[in-house]
């Protein structure tokens, strides 16, 4: 009969094997990057503490994930951050275009705010409802700071002084067809009403380069419906391609004073369209300076300068 001790030991050794596999990533980091990583970790520990918060964020538990994500950020997607000077030491609702079919853009924006910003911060990434029911993913994402994109959750987090990362395009953003790459889809209005309610400034962000990580082939809507998924884009590959990513941070958007969270759609919508326009123009500008890469070169030729 298998004893409990035997099972516990087996599990521990499995964890150790995983740990050793992951730690080999660290060899890619330069000594300067390693010291950035360590000092960021120490700062985050001071800010967020050693214990878990009510949403499950735990800086000590997320340490390993931070190391892996930072390595990917630096050496796989070779992320460049522009407009860093626009990020002040205050609370923001970060609003970005969404792309890439799997939310790697969210992870990279999170890394930028954690590792390239002083003081570092964990952006609370809003995730879809189906995401929180997924085994392992739920646990890992909560430890790293992701939370269910629910209105009450957002308002409670804002009340506690946390900064949020929201993709108001939602599923429309990640399931874009090739012809719509880098075209901002219509934003849902919830984020703006929450900003008005909490008084937290909006910080626009544009991500260039994430669309090509998983090249789009087909949107399997019928299968997604059966599996109760919001979307199921079929990609040419399921291993992320190393498309270089640029993150552009715009100037904070001041909230209008003549409307409030309960104002009619007709008063709210023009402001939302304006934020869409700001992010669209950041994307268009950003594409001009992006680094050449197989897919992006072709895309730029096809789409011209929109």
């Amino acid at each position, binding site marked *: 009969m298998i004893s409990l001790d035997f099972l516990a030991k087996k599990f521990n050794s499995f964890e150790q094997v995983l740990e050793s596999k992951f730690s080999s990533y660290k060899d890619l980091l330069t000594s300067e990057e390693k010291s950035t990583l360590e000092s960021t970790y120490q700062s985050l520990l001071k800010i967020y503490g050693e214990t878990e*918060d*009510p949403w499950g964020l735990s800086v000590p538990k997320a340490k390993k994930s931070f190391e892996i994500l930072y390595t990917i950020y630096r050496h796989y997607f070779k992320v460049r951050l522009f407009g860093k000077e626009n990020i002040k030491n205050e609370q923001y609702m970060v609003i970005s275009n969404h792309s890439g079919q799997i939310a790697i853009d969210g992870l990279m924006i999170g890394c930028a705010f954690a590792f390239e910003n002083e003081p570092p911060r964990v952006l609370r990434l809003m995730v879809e409802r189906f995401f929180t*029911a997924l*085994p392992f993913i739920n646990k890992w994402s909560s430890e790293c700071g992701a939370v*269910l994109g629910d209105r009450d959750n957002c308002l409670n987090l804002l009340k506690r002084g946390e900064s949020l990362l929201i993709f108001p395009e939602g599923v429309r953003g990640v399931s874009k067809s090739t012809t719509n790459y880098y075209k901002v889809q219509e934003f849902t209005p919830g984020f703006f009403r929450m900003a008005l309610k909490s008084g937290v400034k909006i910080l626009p962000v544009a991500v260039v380069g994430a669309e090509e990580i998983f090249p789009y082939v087909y949107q399997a809507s019928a299968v997604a419906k059966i599996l109760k998924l919001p979307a199921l884009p079929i990609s040419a590959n399921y291993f992320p391609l190393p498309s270089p990513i640029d993150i552009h941070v715009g100037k904070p958007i001041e909230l209008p004073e003549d409307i409030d969270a309960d104002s009619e759609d007709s008063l709210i919508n023009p402001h939302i369209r304006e934020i869409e326009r700001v992010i669209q123009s950041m994307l268009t500008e950003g594409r001009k300076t992006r680094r050449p890469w197989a897919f992006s070169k072709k895309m730029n030729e096809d789409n011209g300068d929109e």
Partner: protein
Amino acid sequence: MNNKRSILIIGASGGLANILCGILAKRMPDARIIGIDSRKMKNEVDFDNYTFHRMRYTRRNFEKLFRENRFESIYQIGRITPPGGSAEERLSFSLVNTSKVLELAEKYLIKKFIMLSTYHVYGAQPDNPVFINEDYPLKVSIKHPELRDVTEIDALCTNWMWKNRENIETVVLRPCNIIGPQIDNTISRYLTSNMTPVPIDFNPMMQFIHEYDMANILFQALDKIPTGVYNVAPSETISLQEAKKITGTRDIPFPVFTLEVLSKAIRKIWPFPSYFIDFVMYSCIIDNTKIHQYIPEDIYQYNCRKTLSLIRKG
């Protein structure tokens, strides 16, 4: 019959009620405290102003108790919790008993009715917001009909509360996980057992309240908390895996999403209530803002880690 303040505790044999009886008897020496239960009293409450009666709530002598004592306040703490009894038995017992108590409370013009519900009424769901407030729908019985008794009693008392709000102050308390040396509930057994699986694929955040703190809040509810429904939980939260570490049990790592099937297959020999699997997968964190408008936040004598370490085995 004298003019002493008279308080009835229904379900007085339970661990929590037992502590409450002691607190009431000690802190209110001029009041008459009467505990009733259909079970034997586990630990004697050694105060002259405390009396225990073993009886069923549906019998005729139950009303006699009301007639002779003219209760000013009632605590309804007794109910069968899963996995005890079948779902039908629990529903029938809880509803019949609670309706009888409410009927007598109205008839004999009591002033305060305090009902102990549970945070289980909200249900642990993947789409729960963190900090569920009292207005959140009671969703647990949608997925788990076996918990219908829990939501039905809560709803019954809440409706009764609004109907009688002019004459009777009614307080419905929905506490988080109550644990302590006297409490023998599902979560305590889960935390202190070496034979229960610990999820490797989920790690929900949880709230724990020490039995003494909960009893103290029940006591405070008598004079300090007005009519309404209140969540009861300390502000501190802790993940399930951390909690298991503190209670010092040996872990059996397990992908918990397979548990539901397993629990159905071996239900006869493994009394692991299927609803409880949701609570070890998804967070159900309640908002304590409303109750702390009336009682201070520093009422808790035990923090989360201390509370858990007190039930540590060995």
